[in-house]
């Protein structure tokens, strides 16, 4: 069977037009919604009603919008960490585990406790932040080291470590620090709560019930720092060079093994900070399922943002909306399916950036 025409790919030699990467990302999101709609239709659902509900549940009120930003906060931090690692072609899928480890380390400050609970709030929270960063970095070190030293595929190790982290976390919340047998620790003292806008409700009634907390500032600051590192620092240059052309980086005398470990630690540290921000800003204790697959959504966020730190923020907000709406939507796997479809389409649409696609008639070819 031969079609009268064929699709031909030619490698782009010219610069990629500036609008094209953005267009492919937007196209991927739109197409993912269309495909998900078709799947919904095929199982007898009503896509228009579901997506309409989706939009109202997420952007319908200030309260809902603040919920989105709260959900976007860990995604921003994790997305930034992932994009840093991905730039060097280190595929860190372990943000989920690094998030849990960060949360665990940070909670130790309160649970052990490492400082008396009548210390100033700034001290407690800063120490928790440092511990969160440390926990994530230690957990990122393991796959980075194994990759650098033994050439072990980091995708699989980071994934396996995700499972380990969840069981580790469970041991402490079920066993050592359980609150009267429940699967959670007792609620933290108020000194270990990140400030929320709702705290200001007395002076400004507008803010009553607004859950937005300081964690989002961590995300914004981190975005600026990562951008500065990538754009102006020597280390950022090394990361980009190793990602684009490892051979050239090696000839240039860059220590690739050291950078692999370092980038995984920083990537893990950001996820760990996200874990700290989540337990101090949202749940106020260590418990099961503090993450609604943030680790995986963060991976998708990074790619959809084409590894650009500021775009990560925007995409995180979109995904925050998906998560917020996904909580109330049936079927419950829908938001996960949309995210998965988006990622797959983003990856495959990459071909548009590298190749020119033309349709050639077979007759012309012969002539």
């Amino acid at each position, binding site marked *: 069977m031969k079609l009268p025409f064929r699709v031909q790919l030619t490698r782009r030699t010219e610069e990629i037009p500036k609008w094209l990467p953005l267009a492919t990302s937007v196209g991927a999101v739109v197409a993912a919604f269309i495909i998900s709609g078709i799947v919904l239709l095929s199982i007898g659902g009503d896509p228009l009603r579901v997506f309409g509900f989706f939009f109202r549940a997420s952007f319908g009120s200030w309260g809902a919008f603040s919920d989105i930003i709260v959900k976007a906060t860990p995604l921003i931090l994790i997305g930034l960490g992932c994009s840093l690692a991905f730039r060097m072609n280190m595929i860190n899928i372990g943000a989920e585990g690094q998030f849990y480890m960060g949360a665990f380390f940070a909670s130790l400050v309160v649970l052990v406790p490492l400082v008396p609970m009548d210390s100033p709030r700034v001290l407690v929270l800063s120490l928790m932040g440092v511990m969160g960063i440390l926990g994530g970095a230690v957990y990122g070190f393991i796959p980075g080291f194994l990759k650098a030293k033994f050439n072990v595929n980091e995708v*699989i190790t980071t*994934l396996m470590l995700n499972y380990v982290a969840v069981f580790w976390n469970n041991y402490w919340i079920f*066993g050592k620090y359980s609150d009267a047998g429940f699967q959670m620790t007792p609620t933290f003292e108020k000194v270990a709560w990140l400030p929320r806008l709702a705290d200001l409700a007395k002076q400004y009634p507008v803010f009553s019930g607004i859950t937005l907390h300081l964690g989002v500032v961590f995300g914004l600051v981190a975005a600026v720092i990562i951008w500065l590192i990538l754009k102006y620092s020597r280390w950022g240059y090394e990361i980009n060079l190793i990602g684009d052309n490892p051979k050239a980086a090696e000839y240039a005398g860059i220590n690739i093994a050291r950078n692999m470990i370092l980038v995984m630690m920083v990537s893990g540290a950001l996820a760990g900070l996200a874990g700290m921000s989540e337990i101090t800003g949202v749940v106020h204790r260590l418990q099961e399922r503090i993450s609604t697959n943030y680790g995986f959504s963060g991976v998708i966020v990074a790619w959809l943002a084409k590894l650009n730190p500021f775009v990560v923020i925007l995409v995180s907000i979109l995904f925050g909306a998906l998560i917020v709406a996904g909580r109330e939507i049936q079927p419950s796997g829908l938001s*996960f399916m949309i*995210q*998965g479809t988006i990622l797959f389409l983003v990856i495959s649409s990459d071909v548009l950036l*590298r190749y020119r696609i033309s349709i050639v008639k077979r007759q012309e070819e012969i002539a």
Partner: protein
Amino acid sequence: MSFEVILRAGLATGTILIFASLGEILAERSGVMNLGVEGMMLIGAMAAFKVAFTTQNAWLGLLAGILAGGILSLAHGVVTIHFQADQTVSGLSLTFLGTGLALVLGEGLTGKNAAILPKLDIPLLSSIPWFGRIFFSDFNILVYLGYILVPLTWFYIHKTRPGMHLKAVGEKPSAADTLGINVYRLRYIYTFIGGCMAGLAGAAISIAISPGWYSSLTTSGQGWIAIALVIFAHWNPFPVALGGYFFGMLRRFTLDLQGPMTFLGMRNPFFYDHNLVFFLQMTPFILTIIALVWGSSTARRKRRGAPAALGVPYIRGERGL
């Protein structure tokens, strides 16, 4: 806790890993690494269960599971073979896609009863004393299929002509191309077979070995363990079988260890403190990492293992492998 029980449970649940790993061996031998095994298994498990539930025919379910895994793998095929996308990233996104699809399409199947594949004794072999009772009696039919597929895959790869072509395409595609082997077509075929095997592995869970649909917990990371096994086994079927059965036994062992008050004459801590069980549950995942470290470092040192063109897209007329 008895050794025989653990061994038999290991043979049964190990079959799941072996199906998925054998499929991945074939795909990777042709040069296509597919990290989407977990997603393909899940969609296979869902499709098999759904069809076996609606038709009440387990064989139709099996077919659906196999095809579902295969069809999903073709998405990875197009993206990596024709579009030359990064195989790691594409495979990963395939896992997300497959998981999401399976969760949505499998909505409402939890707790339902589907038709399941039969258990049977192998005539003659099952009457061998001890041996026959352990290996050839009262197993699900798919367990026996696993016994057959392991040597068959080895024979196919190493002793047949198509197997030689398969290796050529994965080691040096440009040379294979000059000999008139269609590199693209073979890669598509083996990616598809790999997907079908992953779908089979999923079906083996949901309608045969531990029947039921438990959304994403149905596979709970086994697809990733299967990929790690392939590396550990240096892309060879027999070590994959050993590893698969071992992991199966380990799973049962960690469950059974919680029962007795003493173990090997010592006080059994897992009986007295049930929270320690969380550490038992970590062991398969930690062992996977250890196996992976061992497999990867020996592969590099002894220059054994990974097909040379694994992960490298083939572009006709361009320099490269």
